[in-house]
């Protein structure tokens, strides 16, 4: 099992690194959105609540551009049968989840500093800010990985991924916006309630997706 996941992950990283366009598109989108926002405001900082909303909107839409690619590519290139013959469906889910986590961390590592730099965000509590961004990203990835498989099975029809992800992500985004705004606003002691909740939530949703994945990915 572990060796299968490693084999699969190594293969995915190699294939994706050689084509690279999914991550390029997501990053380009994030950079353009951030720059456009910054340009439009002309250097006047937004209130923290608005900054937090904008940050999560940019993260959400950049993620929507890229997170489904790992499954959609297999179906597009007709390689999904080869993948299925070579590894078990459980290993496929876990390796794709890990790949998406790596993808999301790259995305966050680019978006967040850029956003802070260009929109003059004044972070009052830096560690809680980083933790809330990370837990939010983790939840987004955990929820959308199985949805990406569903989209791939339907032929990767463009905006379908955003449509089916949004209702399940809305509460996650809401909590993340809320907690990020709190870390921007106050210097006081921070409780990690929301972040803990999101962490437990992603664990739960990952377990559930792991159980449901075979029904989505295997043909009847």
């Amino acid at each position, binding site marked *: 099992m572990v060796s299968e996941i490693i084999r699969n992950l190594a293969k995915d990283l190699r294939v994706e690194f050689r084509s690279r366009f999914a991550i390029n598109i997501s990053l380009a989108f994030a950079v353009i959105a951030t720059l456009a926002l910054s340009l439009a405001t002309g250097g006047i900082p937004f209130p923290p609540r608005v900054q937090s909303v904008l940050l999560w909107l940019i993260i959400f839409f950049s993620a929507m551009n890229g997170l489904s690619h790992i499954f959609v590519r297999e179906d597009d290139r007709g390689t999904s049968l080869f993948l299925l013959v070579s590894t078990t469906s459980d290993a496929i889910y876990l390796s794709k989840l890990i790949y998406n986590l790596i993808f999301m961390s790259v995305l966050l590592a680019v978006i967040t500093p850029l956003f802070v730099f260009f929109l003059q965000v004044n972070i009052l509590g830096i560690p809680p800010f980083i933790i809330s961004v990370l837990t939010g990203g983790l939840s987004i990835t955990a*929820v959308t990985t*199985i*949805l990406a498989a*569903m989209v791939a*099975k*339907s*032929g990767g*029809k463009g905006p*379908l991924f955003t*449509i*089916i992800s*949004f*209702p*399940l992500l*809305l*509460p996650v985004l*809401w909590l993340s916006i809320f907690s990020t705004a709190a870390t921007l606003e106050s210097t006081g002691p921070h409780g990690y309630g929301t972040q803990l*909740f999101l962490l437990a*939530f992603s664990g739960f*949703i990952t377990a*559930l*997706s792991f159980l*449901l994945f075979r*029904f*989505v990915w295997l*043909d*009847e």
Partner: protein
Amino acid sequence: MKLKHIILRSVYIIMPAAIVMAFLWAPPAEILGEASRIMYFHVPLAWVSVLAFVVSGVLSITHLADRNRRFTGLDEWAYHSASTGMVFTILTVITGSIWAKISWGVYWNWDPRETSIVIILLIYIAYLSLRSALAHTENRGRIGSAYLILAMITLPFFIFLVPRIYDSLHPDPIINFDRTIYLDGRMRVTLGVAILAFTLLYSYIVNILNRIAILNNTVEDTFHEDH
């Protein structure tokens, strides 16, 4: 005629009774006055939306857990429940915003209850578009069911947590600090009849949709055997 059909068809009697009771028999409320009568439609509609959502989720779980295919057409049943539920959800949102306009002065204010019903509505929209995108694939039933299960299991956390994190304008039936609805006896009876009537209406519609689906399948089966 089977007992099931007699029960389902009793909606033809109970629904008009509920409507007449709601308008003529139940007393008007103190502040809201006659406008409070919308309660006898809004509350049952909201109840049916949640019921339809849960029913389609449970049917989906059964569909996936049923490995030996002892039951057929459960995914279609879940689909019918969800599409009927979506109509009821839209009606809930409409009656709710009318009530909100009357009692709070605005049609919409992102009250937690409103948020959760909108999330349910979005889930239905997403589910229906997923199913239409999956048309003509073998896995349609299973993928749709997996999505409904995911949605049904994640939603309660937020429905039960979010109204506790934010304050609600809605009377809260779960923890009543001071905002329980105090209902008159006649109001209570009317509400009960209305809930029964709307539940019957929902079951009746889903039943008809199911029967049509079964007919479709048998007709197509015999057609393919002949040719």
